[in-house]
């Protein structure tokens, strides 16, 4: 499905909610982007409202994507992967450590 811009007077996802979600995933976002995402998110949510028309009172929540239970492994060691290959595939590393920018926790 292609999402086309919708024109709803009261989108169900406000620009404030968009800013909040951006904060939770630590993304910088421009003011004009919040408007675009507000509309697009609202449209997605509204589309999923269709599901509310189905009576699911007798259906258990889907906790799996195929009907299985108790999929286990035994407590046995398997070889680890190559550290060199792992580190070389990262944007940055220092010595044997993965290197990432610090996360600042203040809003």
């Amino acid at each position, binding site marked *: 499905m292609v999402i086309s811009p919708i024109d709803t007077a009261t989108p169900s996802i406000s620009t404030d909610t968009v800013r909040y979600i951006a904060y*939770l995933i630590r993304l910088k976002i421009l003011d004009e982007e919040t408007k675009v995402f507000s509309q697009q998110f609202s449209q997605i949510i509204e589309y999923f409202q269709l599901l509310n028309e189905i009576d699911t009172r007798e259906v258990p*929540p889907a906790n*799996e994507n*195929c009907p299985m239970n108790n999929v286990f492994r035994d*407590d*046995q060691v398997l070889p680890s992967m190559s550290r060199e290959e792992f580190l070389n595939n990262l944007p940055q590393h220092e010595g044997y*450590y993965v290197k*990432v920018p610090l996360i600042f926790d203040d809003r």
Partner: protein
Amino acid sequence: MNTIKYEPIIGLEIHAELLTITKMFCGCSADHSSLLEPNTLICPVCTGLPGAMPVLNKKAVEQSILVGLALNCTINEVNIFARKNYFYPDLPKGYQISQYDHPVASDGWLDILDENEGTRQRVRIRRAHLEEDTAKLMHKGNFALIDFNRAGVPLLEIVSEPDMHSVQAILSYANKIRAILRYLGVNSGDMEKGVLRFEANISVRPLGSQELNTRTEIKNLNSFRSLTQASSYEINRQIDLYNNGLDVNLETLGWDEVKGETYSQRGKEEAHDYRYFPEPDIPPILVDRSWVQTISSQLPELPDAKNKRFMEEYGLSLQEVRSLTYEKEFADFFEKVVTLSSSPTKMIYNWLTGEFTRQINERNIDIQKIPVTPENFAQLLDLFSSRVINDFTAKEILVEIFISNKNVRDIISEKGLLQISDENYLTDLINRILSENPDPVKQYLAGKESLFQWFMGQVSRETKGKSDPQVVRQLLQKILKNNN
């Protein structure tokens, strides 16, 4: 000024690393230690590479069920894993696989003794759920360095109800949980390696009132010391605020070990921000009754039961048995020595909790790796109680066996440490000492009885500590009397 007395209300969350061989969702070894080079225990699953599929370690579930049973919990028939979403570099997937509304165990309890008052008190356990540990972060300038060796190690989070009302009670509860986990063999109890971590929820209210005031949560307490210090600091801070007509803010706090203060961690997301949803990669776990029964049959004797049995079997007080049973290995050692030795149980207890413990502490010995065998220690005690060696020599040999665990009899014959109780030899020696010291003899006979110990000391010195003090005492009394 009229001062209100306040009562703290405290709940504790304990994160315990389980003692599985491999991580929770992959086959990487879970034996991460700071001695290992970073990023050596890694695979696509525990580094969160796209498309990697987690598969649950059965052992982690079994160990959690075992803990649930030991804490008198209901073991839930349906276990569902959930994604707890938050964004931090120690969590490469952007979520932690945890459990939310269907944990392994819920609604249990644990009885503790409030150390101060010695009264038994019940702490309700709200739940125990499984989750994966995060990677280790090291800050360096404007960057963080990450080691994924710990990422994905199974953690059991044990959540209590806010049933504790003193720092003593928290300490007692945390110690007991640690002991139980060690008895069950599901946690090493090695605090320095961070295998037990605490979070305390604290509020205070006027004593006797039923109101519920705002609580704060102190995170990342990694030792019993920081747990008790941070909690008592926070209790006093809240009381001060109320006494000054101020309010406590609902917030998450950190603990500054150096300053000895709690501090606000602003901006930490509230529970609803984690956007929990069922983990689609882990199908539900159904725990049937027969599985629980099998696990339940593996429950060992736990500290409370052991305390009771020790009191009955060995005639020791509760306080005495608790110093033996706090560490399972120590309790086992005691019982083995009791079986092997013909010495009185009380004497075994005194030596174990006295000189023996002193050696363990002085040498900083891991209680799981006592270098002395129970056989050798039992022999040492028996040679002492049958007066083949004296107290002084026994202590000397104890030090020796902590170093080498050489056979006690070999040490005695090699070093010529046999106790001298030969009466003819000792009589000659005493006579010589008395004739060489006429003045002290005169003073003693004139009534200065404290000199008796001095004569004892002289004999001991001449025999290099090997004389049998009981024989010497009798002979000395007899000879001094005859001198009169």
